[in-house]
C-alpha cells in the first residue's frame, strides 16, 4: 500500500476483516442487501444486519432468504428498479449462484458482491483457496482480489464506482481470502462517510423498471441479436480496464491510499525473477522478497488486482525485462494441470516477441498453509529455470507424497 503522506495512525482501529468490509458497505449507502449465511462470510452479513438494526444505514432493506440462489435473484429484482445492491457469499454459495451470475451480468446490473474465497466441495472444506471465484471466470463479473483488510474495505467503494460507471455497468466481485482476511484483526482506517459520499455519488441508474417509462428486462434475444449482447459486455469489460485504474487513482487522491490499479508492482524494476499472484499470498511473497533481496537475489512481484477484465497489457509491460516468470495460483483447471492465472499469462505472451520462460505453481488448496520457505523454494527453482530452462512447466506445490 502506498500512502499520501503518513498513514493516519490516530484514525486506525483494530477490527476484524469482515467488520471492515461491512463498514465499507455501510458508507457506500446500499439500498438492498440480500445474503444467506455461509462460513466464512457470515460475519460480514451479521455486521451489516447490526448496522441496519442500529439505524446506521438509512433507506436500506436487508432481505433474508432461503438460499444464495434466492439472495442474488432478489437483488436482480431490486437492481432492476434502480436500487444499489450488495451481497456476500463464498464457495458453495457462489457456485449455487452460477446461473444468476450470468443473468446479472447479461442485464448489466452493477451489483457488488464480496466473495470470501473458500475451497469448493467435495471433499467439504471451509478453508481458503480461489477455486470458487475462478470457476465463475466467464460469467461476466469483474473480479478484483484484495491483499489485506484495508484493501478489501477500500476496494468495496472502488467496486461500486467501477460497476456503476455508465461505460461499464457490470457487476463486481470483491474477492478476499477466507479466514486469512475475513477473520483476522488488524489496524485499519474505516472509510469516512463524508469522503465516501464525495468519492461515490448517489447511484443514478440508466435503465430501470418504471411505470412512467415502461421497458423490459431479460427478454429473449434470438440469433439475430444475441451476439451483440455478448459483444457489448466484452466492450464494457474493456472499458472497465481504464475505469479500474481511474477508481484507484481517484481513491488515492481522496483517501490517500493506493494498492495499484489493475496490477501493482513490488521490486520489479531490476528483477530477473518475477512472481505473479493474487490475494493475501502477496504479503507472504513480499516478505520473502525482502529477505532474499538482502542476499542479492533480484526477485520482484507482480500483484494482479483485476483478474477480470484480464489486464494483458499491464502484465506484458510489467514482465518485459524479466528473465523468468513464476505464477502462483490458488486454483487448478483439472485436466489441464494449470492454474488459471498461469494459463492466461502464458497465453497473452504467445503472439509477442517476449519469449520469457513462464512456470506455474498451484498452491494453498483448501487452506494448506503457504510458508516463506515454500516461496523461497519456488524462487530457487525459478533461478534454475533461468539458468538451465524449464523442466516442469506447471506443478502442485507441497503435495504430501506420503499419504497418496
Amino acid at each position, binding site marked *: 500500500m502506498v500512502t499520501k503522506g503518513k498513514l493516519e495512525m490516530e484514525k486506525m482501529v483494530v477490527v476484524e476483516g469482515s467488520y471492515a468490509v461491512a463498514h465499507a458497505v455501510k458508507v457506500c449507502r446500499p439500498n438492498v442487501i440480500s445474503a*444467506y*449465511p*455461509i*462460513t466464512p462470510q*457470515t460475519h460480514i*452479513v*451479521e455486521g451489516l*444486519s*447490526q448496522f*441496519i*438494526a442500529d439505524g446506521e444505514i438509512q433507506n436500506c432493506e*436487508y432481505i*433474508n432468504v*432461503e*438460499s444464495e440462489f434466492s439472495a442474488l435473484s432478489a437483488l436482480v429484482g431490486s437492481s432492476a428498479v434502480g436500487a444499489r445492491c450488495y451481497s456476500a457469499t463464498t464457495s*458453495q454459495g457462489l457456485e*449455487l449462484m452460477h446461473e444468476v451470475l450470468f443473468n446479472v451480468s447479461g442485464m448489466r446490473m452493477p451489483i457488488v458482491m464480496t466473495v470470501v474465497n473458500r475451497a469448493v*466441495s*467435495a471433499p*467439504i472444506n471451509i478453508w481458503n483457496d480461489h477455486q470458487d471465484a475462478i470457476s465463475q471466470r466467464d460469467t461476466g463479473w469483474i473480479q478484483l482480489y484484495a491483499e489485506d483488510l484495508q484493501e478489501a474495505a477500500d476496494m468495496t467503494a472502488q467496486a461500486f464506482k467501477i460497476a456503476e460507471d455508465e461505460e461499464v455497468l457490470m457487476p463486481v466481485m470483491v474477492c478476499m481470502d477466507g479466514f486469512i482476511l475475513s477473520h483476522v484483526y488488524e489496524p485499519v482506517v474505516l472509510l469516512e462517510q463524508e469522503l465516501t459520499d464525495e468519492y461515490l455519488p448517489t447511484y443514478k441508474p440508466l435503465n430501470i423498471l418504471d411505470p412512467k417509462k415502461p421497458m423490459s428486462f431479460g427478454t429473449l434475444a434470438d440469433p439475430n441479436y444475441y451476439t451483440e449482447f455478448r459483444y457489448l459486455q466484452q466492450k464494457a469489460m474493456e472499458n472497465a480496464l481504464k475505469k479500474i485504474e481511474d477508481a484507484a487513482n481517484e481513491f488515492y487522491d481522496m483517501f490517500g491510499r493506493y494498492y495499484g490499479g489493475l496490477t501493482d508492482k513490488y521490486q520489479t524494476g531490476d528483477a530477473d525473477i518475477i512472481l505473479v499472484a493474487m490475494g493475501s499470498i502477496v504479503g507472504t511473497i513480499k516478505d520473502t522478497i525482502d529477505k532474499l533481496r538482502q542476499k542479492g537475489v533480484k526477485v520482484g512481484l507482480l500483484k494482479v488486482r483485476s483478474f477480470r477484465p484480464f489486464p494483458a497489457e499491464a502484465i506484458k509491460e510489467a514482465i518485459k525485462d524479466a528473465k523468468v516468470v513464476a505464477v502462483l495460483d490458488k486454483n487448478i483447471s483439472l485436466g489441464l494441470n494449470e492454474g488459471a492465472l498461469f494459463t492466461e499469462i502464458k497465453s497473452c505472451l504467445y503472439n509477442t516477441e517476449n519469449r520469457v520462460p513462464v512456470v506455474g505453481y498451484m498452491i494453498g488448496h483448501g487452506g494448506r498453509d503457504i510458508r516463506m520457505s515454500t516461496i523461497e523454494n519456488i524462487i530457487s527453482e525459478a533461478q534454475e529455470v533461468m539458468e538451465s530452462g524449464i523442466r516442469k512447466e506447471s506443478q502442485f506445490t507441497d503435495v504430501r507424497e506420503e499419504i497418496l
Partner: protein
Amino acid sequence: MVTMEDYPDIETEWCPGCGNFGILKAIRKALVSVGKAPHEVLIVSGIGQAGKLPHYMKCNTFNGLHGRTLPLATGSKAANHDLTVLTVGGDGDTYGEGGNHLIHAIRRNPNITAIVHDNQIYGLTKGQASPTSELGMKTKVQTHGVVNTPLSPLSLAVSLDCSFVARGYAGNIEHLAGILEEAIKHRGFALVDILQPCVTFNKLNTFKWYAERVYRLDEEGYVPDDRIKAFERSLEWGDRIPIGIFYKKEKPTFEDGFGTLGEGTLISRPKDQTLVEELIDSFM
C-alpha cells in the same frame, strides 16, 4: 441378529447437551428394531449440524451438498432399491435450501425416510433464523426479530398427501425410536420432523419449553388415517404441541412406477448392450 453393538458410539463434534444426541440414539435403536444391519443401510445428509450425523454412524453414508439430500437419496434408491435409505438434514437444509426438493420428493413417494432435525435455528453458521424460527425471534441477522411466517412442515406434508407424516421429540428417545421404526417400515416417503432443542443458539425453544408443551397423539386415542384431522393437528402449535404419527397412507411408491424394478435392482442386472446396439443400428 442386529444389536446396538452393530451401531457403536463414535466421538461427535456437537455441543454437550445437544438434541442431536437423542436423535442419533433413536435412529440406532430404530435400525436395530427393524433388524437392518449397517451394510443394508444408507444414510444421506446435506450440510449443517444434522449433516454431520452420518459421520457418527457405522453404515453406508453419503455427505452431499447443502439442501440436496432428497434428490441424491432418490437416485440411490432408484438404482438399488434393496437399500434402506434414510436422509438426515436440519430445518435449513430440508425446508430452506432444499425446500423445493421436499415438495417433489413427497409427490414421487420414494421409499425413503426423511429425518429432519428441526431446531428452528441455523446451528452450523452459529445462530441465524431458519424457515421454522418463530416470529419475533432475534438473532445476529434478524436483529429486529423474525418477520417471515414460520413454515409448518407437517401441514405442508399433509396437504401434499405425503404417505407418512410424523413428529418426534429429541427429549423422548423411546417414543422417537418407535416413530422412526414405523417410518422405516412404511412403504413410501416418510417425513419425520423432530423437535430438537439447540442448547447453544436457540434460547426460546429449549428442552424445558418443549417439555411443558409436547403431548403424545397416541395417548389421546388419535388414529392417523384421516387427512383432514391430520391437517387440523398439524396446525396445533402453542401451549400444546402434538408428537407422534399424524398421517399414514398406503399408495404406490416411486419404485412401483417402474415395472422393471420388480425384476431386481438396476445395479445387479447384467449389462447387455445387444438390444441397444440393435436399436441404434435400426436407425443407421
